């Protein structure tokens, strides 16, 4: 199984590629592995299924939307702060 460190490292590679991806496939869901886009999809469900088909459930791929990264509030009280 891919470790969380490996998943985190893949996300770092995605962040570096994001400026280019925002020009080529904005708003798309992508399967991303080893620093490159493996496939693009219209929704997360389809991307997740494609990632499993290509690499299995523990292959170390990430599934992510090509958009500016956001910060999520987790727990109602967190939404009170910026």
């Amino acid at each position, binding site marked *: 199984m891919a470790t969380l460190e490996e998943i985190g490292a893949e996300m770092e590679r995605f962040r570096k590629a994001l400026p280019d991806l925002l020009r080529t496939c904005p708003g798309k869901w992508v399967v991303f592995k080893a620093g490159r886009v493996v496939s693009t999809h219209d929704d*997360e469900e389809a991307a997740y299924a494609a990632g499993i088909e290509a690499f299995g459930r523990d292959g170390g791929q990430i*599934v992510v939307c090509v958009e500016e990264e956001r*910060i*999520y509030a*987790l727990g*109602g009280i967190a*939404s009170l*702060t910026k």
Partner: protein
Amino acid sequence: MKLYYHDGYAVAGDGSAAKRLILHGPIIKVELTPWHLPAPRVTARLLLDTGSDISALAQDIIGSLGLSSLRPVQARLADGRVYQRFLYRMSMHLPVSCAGQGAPGGTFMFSANSVGQEVHSPPDMRVSDGLIGRDFLSHFQFRYDGETGSFRLEVRQ
């Protein structure tokens, strides 16, 4: 969002009743499995939290499900600080009843994402095992009846 019907849930009349779920909250008991797999199956009690952008689940439950992370995300917790959390995808099985149609209850299965959160108290000492946030609720029309403590989720057409 894809909606799956399970366990012989009856579709009444024109079928619209099958898309209306009534649950009693604010903590509901659900069953979780890895995405589109029948096992392992873990029961969890989740708190409905309209103040959360995303759903969360105790990390030990994610471990029991044997899930690999989709990706890390940035999450602001109650202390106002931003932390990295890992996001996981799973199937959530909701026990439901059918409003006013006389149809038997059943189970609906949804795809759901949750971030993992370390919880230091054992499962039997927790108020809940996680949160259901607006990421999940955004797929429904959500109505809460404060007198009965029940809420209704209707799938958007």
